């Protein structure tokens, strides 16, 4: 099989990705061992690997993973439903869009995580504080990208719909929404990133809940290999979300 044919196989990108990760881990191991990276800040990967077993067995990682996933999933579902709805509303009502789009964009870059004391007062030290913080942080990109996607629908596609006498809701479901879907999903992915960062961040800050709290606990104990192992589980939550959104997008719009 030629090299070009090998690169076209489905297994090649996966193998390349795993290989690159393994190479990066190996490089980190070497750099730490030779003293380029301080081992009191970054533990050796060879120390992190056995820490996985300890974290799984001793720290109830499954329940913590489930809790963080639930919080992030709930906040993610909320940013999707509310964000797409608000985006559509702002797209349809131009005056509202002109009045608020800049504020929404400003909110996207605001460090909303600093508002956690306010959310603690409103929702108490509960999962809802974490979910709402994740929701507020992840909402703006979904709104902005929904507006961008709907506004970017090619005029000719809308005219095709009009020529077939589509009603307003038909025009939205049959043309505007599917045309905007790739851009909307960019917004959802961005929103999920902000949401997950905030969910884990607030868990860490208020020392409550899932993986964020665990990272806090392990860091307090100066268990660096355990801390990094827990961070790997946060990455796993992120991977789960990205796989999920990709599947949903593929289901809604099978080709692009």
């Amino acid at each position, binding site marked *: 099989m030629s090299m070009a044919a090998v690169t076209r196989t489905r297994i090649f990108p996966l193998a390349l990705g795993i290989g690159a990760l393994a190479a990066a881990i190996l490089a980190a191991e070497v750099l730490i061992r030779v003293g380029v990276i301080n081992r009191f800040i970054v533990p050796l990967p060879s120390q992190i690997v056995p820490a996985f077993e300890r974290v799984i067995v001793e720290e109830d990682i499954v329940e913590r993973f489930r809790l963080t996933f639930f919080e992030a999933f709930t906040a993610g579902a909320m940013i999707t439903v509310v964000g797409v709805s608000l985006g559509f509303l702002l797209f349809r009502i131009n005056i509202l869009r002109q009045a608020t789009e800049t504020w929404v964009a400003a909110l996207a870059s605001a460090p909303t995580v600093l508002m956690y004391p306010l959310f603690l007062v409103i929702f108490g030290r509960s999962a809802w504080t974490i979910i709402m913080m994740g929701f507020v942080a992840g909402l703006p990109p979904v709104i902005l990208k929904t507006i961008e996607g709907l506004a970017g629908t*090619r005029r*000719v*596609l809308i*005219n*095709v719909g*009009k*020529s*077939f*006498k*589509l009603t307003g809701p*038909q025009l939205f479901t*049959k*043309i505007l929404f*599917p*045309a905007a*879907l790739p851009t909307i999903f960019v917004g959802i992915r961005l929103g999920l990133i902000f949401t997950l960062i905030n969910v884990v961040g607030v868990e860490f800050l208020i020392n409550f809940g899932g993986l964020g709290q665990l990272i806090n606990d392990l860091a307090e104990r100066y268990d660096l290999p355990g801390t990094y192992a827990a961070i790997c589980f946060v990455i796993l939550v992120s991977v789960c979300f990205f796989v999920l959104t990709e599947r949903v997008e593929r289901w809604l*719009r*099978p*080709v*692009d």
Partner: protein
Amino acid sequence: MASVATLPKSGAAGAQAAADAGILVVDEIVKQFDTPEGPLIAVDRVSLSVRPGEFLAVIGPSGCGKSTLFNIIGGLLDGYQGAVTVGGETVRGPHPAIGMVFQEESTFPWRTLIENVAFPLEIAGMSRKDRFVKAKKFIALVGLSGFENRYPAELSGGMRQRVAIARTLASEPKILLMDEPFASLDEQTRLLLGDKVLQIQQDLKQTTLLITHNITEAVQLADRILVMTYRPGRVKRMVEIDLPRPRSSDVVSSEAFGRYVAQIWSDLREEATRGMQDEESRTLQAGDAS
């Protein structure tokens, strides 16, 4: 020598005469746009009538209001004077008897070829099975059988435009309204697609109104060609194309074809020159202003 008949008779008598014969009648349409430079009359007292089964082409230089006329007839543009009627019924908004094919690529990229063609049937509430059976007929008509489950991104520009034509035909319009459907295609594809359109028009006896700026395309396809003036767009002349049917792209090599092309070009040349000069002067003015 090809026969050339001047049209139209402006005013009520002309409109009445047109209305008597036409399934589609455009009567004294005037459309004005407000621009930063002041009001611009895009279309000025344009009247035409398309007979059942006829292929009428509207030709004119860029900026003569062809696309404005297309949008008015298709019901996508309002705020004009005059009237458009289909079978005696005034057009107010998109009319089910008029099927539109657009200049730009207009297939839905998220739908397969058959889902694209079945789209108007889906909107009409037909079951999935029935609409796919019917869609296959129109896919065969445009010569795309075997590509039913391909997505537009997997097709060439010419194939995508055939999908758009099939999708419009699937709604079984009385009048097929096309706005420069082959404008983005190369000359050879354009000629071959012209053959396909001729064949479809002959098979379905489809009344067709084609908006174009391409003289050879208009002569190859049309029974009559309406020549428009450059801004404001008015009817300059109606040319009867007396070439034998059934036609194919072979007709372009005939002597009569060449005469028609030359004749229409002599009409258009003056308008196209005026358009070019106007564009140059506006570019200069814009440059001076900046």
